[in-house]
Each structure stands twice: as structure tokens, then as C-alpha cells.
């Protein structure tokens, strides 16, 4: 009796791990990727805490960036670790504050591009036909204009405009410009993946139950293409941070608060005087963030989608 019971026990199929658990396990085994994840989380926490600090008007480090802490262009010392800029403001505080601008911009831009690209791609891939043609036309049009030119055109036009009774200023124009132009990549990916999935058995089963099309797209198909969205998000985030730096540098970004691009712009004139610390601080801030996000993004892609793995 007990023997038979044991046989039944062993015949029961082993409990499967979900895609996410599987990926998390694989990610955890990669030590460099976990270190990079830590760095990325630290940057996000920094940006978040500056938001909180500003909201409650707390007087701590980065939110006091405007305070004069020393003479103009003081080199790095024990008092001001990264020296001061032309107004005697601490470069360290400005660099930390820059994280808030960059990450806010990149996050908002990503959310906008996902909010546009994912539903459009899903609808185009599932319905095909006329809807598909219109959406493909839309993104082919956008992608035939060079990316940087498109962002600049949007940023120039949107800046200081009133849209729907809301005045677009500073970084809002930046993330609107980036977000409205960069949904093409994710839309194309999701569309292709949905086309691949829509004839699979589980979708047919859902159709035969009589599920509504909305339910099939968003409850059945979406979870199966979500990993692509996440991978794309993590790798594109870096590009957004770099785009923000370039836009701020060209004077299209935040004008009255410090950002990494604005710091590099200031440094243009300072380098010839031997003032290198502002430049170095902004470069290092961007460098470590993108390095960590690049390495983590690659590891994430390898873990979530083993088929895509690059050797």
C-alpha cells in the first residue's frame, strides 16, 4: 500500500518553476550582474530620496545644491570632495542632484514609450490587416527620420508650448520628446512576438473558451511577451540617459537646476583653465550608471531569454 502510494507520489510531475523564478535564479548566480543591480538600485534610491527631500523641503546635502560652500573654482579638498564650480557651489551636491533629473527623465520617457509602443504593437500583431498597415506605416515614418534629429525637432517645438492647457517647461519637454519618438523599437518587437505567438495552442484554447479579444491580448498574450518589454526597457534606459545629457547640453533641458548635461556644458569653458573636476564628476556619474545598467541589462536578457543569448 505504502509502496503504491510512493509510486504515485514519484509519478507526479515535478513542480515547474515559472519563467520569472527561473530567471531570478539564473541572475543570482551571476555575481557581477548582482553588483551592477546594486549600483543601479543605489542611483534610483538617490533620485527617489531627492524627490522626497524636495517634496518635504528637507535641508540635506543634494537639495541644498544652490548653497555657496566655498570660493569660486576651489579644487577638490577634504572640505569639498569634488571642489566647487564658478558660483562656489559644491560639485558633489550638483552631481548627486543630477541623478534626479536624469533618472526622472529616463523613467518618464520609458513609461511614455512603453505606454504607446506596447499596446500599438500588440494590436497590430494580433489583428493584422488594415490596423497593422496603419501602425507599421506610422512607425516606418518615424524611423525614417534619424533618431537624434527627431528628438531635437520634438524638443525644440514642444519647449515652452502650452499643450491642452499645460505649459511644457524644462525637463517635461525633454521626456516628452524622447518618449514620443522612441516607442518604435518596442512596438516593432512586440508586434513580431505577438505574430509568432498568436497561432499557438494556448491562444486557440482561449479563443475556444470564448474569451474576448481584449482578454486574449492583455491576459494571455501579454504575459508571454512581457520579458521582451523588460529587456528592452533596461537596455534603452541607458540610451535615454545619454540623450538627456545631449539635450541638456544643447540648452533644451532643465535650465535653472543642475543636471549632468548642463554640468558638462559648463565644463566646456572651464577645462582650458584647468578646472577639470566638474567635467570629471559628471562623466563618472554617467559612466558608472550606464556601465552598471548595460552589464545588468545583458545579464537580464541572457536569463530571461536563453534563446537570445549571445556567447
Amino acid at each position, binding site marked *: 500500500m505504502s509502496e503504491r502510494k510512493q509510486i504515485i507520489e514519484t509519478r507526479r510531475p515535478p513542480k515547474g518553476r515559472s519563467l520569472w523564478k527561473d530567471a531570478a535564479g539564473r541572475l543570482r548566480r551571476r555575481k557581477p550582474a548582482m553588483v551592477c543591480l546594486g549600483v543601479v538600485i543605489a542611483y534610483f534610491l538617490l533620485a527617489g530620496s531627492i524627490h522626497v527631500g524636495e517634496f518635504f523641503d528637507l535641508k540635506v546635502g543634494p537639495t541644498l545644491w544652490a548653497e555657496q560652500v566655498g570660493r569660486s573654482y576651489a579644487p577638490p579638498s577634504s572640505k569639498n570632495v569634488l571642489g566647487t564650480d564658478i558660483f562656489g557651489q559644491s560639485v558633489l551636491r550638483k552631481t548627486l542632484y543630477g541623478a534626479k533629473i536624469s533618472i526622472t527623465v529616463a523613467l518618464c520617457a520609458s513609461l511614455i514609450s512603453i505606454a504607446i509602443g506596447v499596446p500599438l504593437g500588440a494590436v497590430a500583431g494580433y489583428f493584422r490587416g488594415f490596423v497593422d498597415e496603419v501602425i507599421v506605416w506610422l512607425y516606418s515614418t518615424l524611423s525614417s527620420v534619424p533618431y537624434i534629429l527627431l528628438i531635437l525637432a520634438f524638443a525644440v517645438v514642444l519647449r515652452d508650448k502650452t499643450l491642452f492647457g499645460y505649459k511644457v517647461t524644462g525637463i517635461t519637454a525633454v521626456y516628452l520628446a524622447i518618449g514620443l519618438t522612441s516607442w518604435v523599437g518596442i512596438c516593432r518587437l512586440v508586434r513580431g512576438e505577438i505574430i509568432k505567438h498568436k497561432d499557438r495552442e494556448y491562444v486557440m484554447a482561449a479563443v475556444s473558451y470564448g474569451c474576448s479579444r481584449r482578454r486574449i491580448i492583455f491576459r494571455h498574450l501579454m504575459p508571454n511577451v512581457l520579458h521582451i518589454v523588460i529587456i528592452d526597457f533596461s537596455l534603452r534606459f*541607458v540610451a535615454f540617459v*545619454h540623450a538627456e545629457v545631449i539635450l541638456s547640453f544643447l540648452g533644451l533641458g532643465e535650465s535653472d537646476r543642475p543636471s549632468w548635461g548642463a554640468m558638462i556644458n559648463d565644463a566646456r569653458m572651464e577645462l582650458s583653465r584647468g578646472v577639470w573636476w566638474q567635467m570629471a564628476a559628471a562623466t563618472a556619474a554617467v559612466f558608472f550608471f550606464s556601465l552598471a545598467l*548595460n*552589464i545588468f541589462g545583458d545579464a537580464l536578457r541572457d536569463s530571461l531569454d536563453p534563446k537570445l543569448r549571445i556567447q
Partner: protein
Amino acid sequence: MTTYIIRRLLYCVPIVFGVLLLTFVLFVVIGGDISIEIAGKGASQETIDEIREEYGLNEPLFLGWDSQFINHFKNALTFDFGRARDRELVIDKIKRGVGPSLALTVPMFFAVVVIAVSLSLVIAFVHGSMWDIFAVVVCIAGMSVPFLSFILFGQYFLAYKWGLFPIFFSSDLTMAQNVALPVLIGVAAGLGGNVRFYRTVMLDEMGRDYVRTAFAKGLSARRVLFKHVLKNALIPIITRMAMAIPFLFLGSLLLERFFGIPGLGYLMVEAIGARDYSVISAMTYISAIFFVVFNLITDICYSLVDPRVSLE
């Protein structure tokens, strides 16, 4: 074949229409009436009216044969973009800028491709060793440094401090001297991403059976790499190159800005500073046309080379 080319040509029409619609919506509908801005502070109503008349801002947006919508299309299709803020014809400005831009981007482009492909072949050969890991990390690090930092530090150290190159564009020097440093910086900045891409391409090829056969025949590594692998890897390499070629005409926004090279990138930066919509709109349209035309040419070339390619 002829049907393919005709169908492929017809396929371009909606794209060009779409780009024109995009520039119209951006610069006319959202951009709005810029006559007051052009006239400057304290301009009389007469001047503003004149400007409105010249730019056709008095016409209706959509309805009527003389509407701004129709005019926008007419002007773009006849390459008549009106005048920039300094009263020069936009099309003349663009024609003048193409030369310097190409002088900068063409050498940069070919240098990056040649160096990146050779490096990636070597890296693919030592694949799996410490050197491979080291190379990938260096590539990712190179991709993570902001482009602006490459330019600023390059200009500061190589030109200003050590005096190896001219700091700024000057018409006394030859073009080669002027673009040497910008090209060098552009290559250094572009290498990381490109080596990484080509490495993946090479590794895909290295895993194929014919490579094993070639090694089994006793061919030298150099022969296998440069004769067999490179030849087969050419298709993705050429695809990537063909996609990049239309963008060469645009020049490099930041490099031209920093070194004062009077190309299209410089023109664009100036136009952004002055909020000169006619220049930005014209640049957007022309670069899109270049892209569409080059895509058309590459597609036709592909279909000539590979009979399996057809328009679905």
C-alpha cells in the same frame, strides 16, 4: 523584377507623405505662429504682418487650395524651403554644409568599420579566454562614457594641452588637418558598440560546420578567419553599413559644434539655438528622403543578389 522595383517604389510614397505630415504637424500645427518671434522685440505691427504674409501664416491651415497644408507639401516636393532667419535660402545653406559634413563622417565611418571588423575577428578567435572577457568589458565601458566627454577630453588633451592637432576649424588649414582630430574622437567613441556588434556576428559564424571543416582540413587560423569567416559574415556587416550610409550626410551634431566645422550638424545646432523652424523642418525632411532612397537602393541590390528576396 520590374514589378518588384515598381512595387518597392510605390511603397515609398506613403512614407514620404508620412514624414511631410509629421513635419507639418510639428512645425506648423504645434509650432504655431512664429511671426512675432521672428520680428523680434518691439517690432511694429506692419513688420509682423509682412512676415506673416511671407511665411503664408495668413492662409487657412487645411481647407482651400492655398492652405498651409497644401503649401507645405508643394514646397517640400519642389525642395523650396524658404529663407532662414538670416535671409539666406535654406536649400543653399544645406548644399554648402554637405561637403564639410561628408569630409568628417565618411573617413570616420570607414575607419570604424575596418578597425571594428578586424578587432572582432581577432576577439572571435580568442573567444572564451580572459582576453575575450577583457575586450567585452572594455567595449561596454567605452559605450558607457558620454560622447560629450570623449569630445571634451580629446579636444582638451590632444589639441589644447599637447598641441598635436588644431583646436578649431580654420580655413587656412587643409580639410584633412581640420578633420583629423574629430575623426579620431569619433572613431574612439564609436568603436565600443561596433566591436561588440561585430563580435556577435563573428561568433555566430564561428560556430558553423564549415569553420570546423576548414580547421579540420588543416588550414591556418588566419586563412580560416579572413577567407572563410569574414566572407560569410559580410552580409550582416553590409546590412549594417547600408543602414548607416544615409546618416553620413547629416554630419555629426556634436563634433561639428565643438570643432567649428561648418557642416550640416553645425547648421542644425545653430538652428536649434535660434529656433529656426524652417531649417530644422527642411533637415528632417531631407534626411528622411535620403534614408528612404538608400533603403530602396539596398533593397533592390539585395533582390538582384539574392533571388529569394521578394516583397511580401
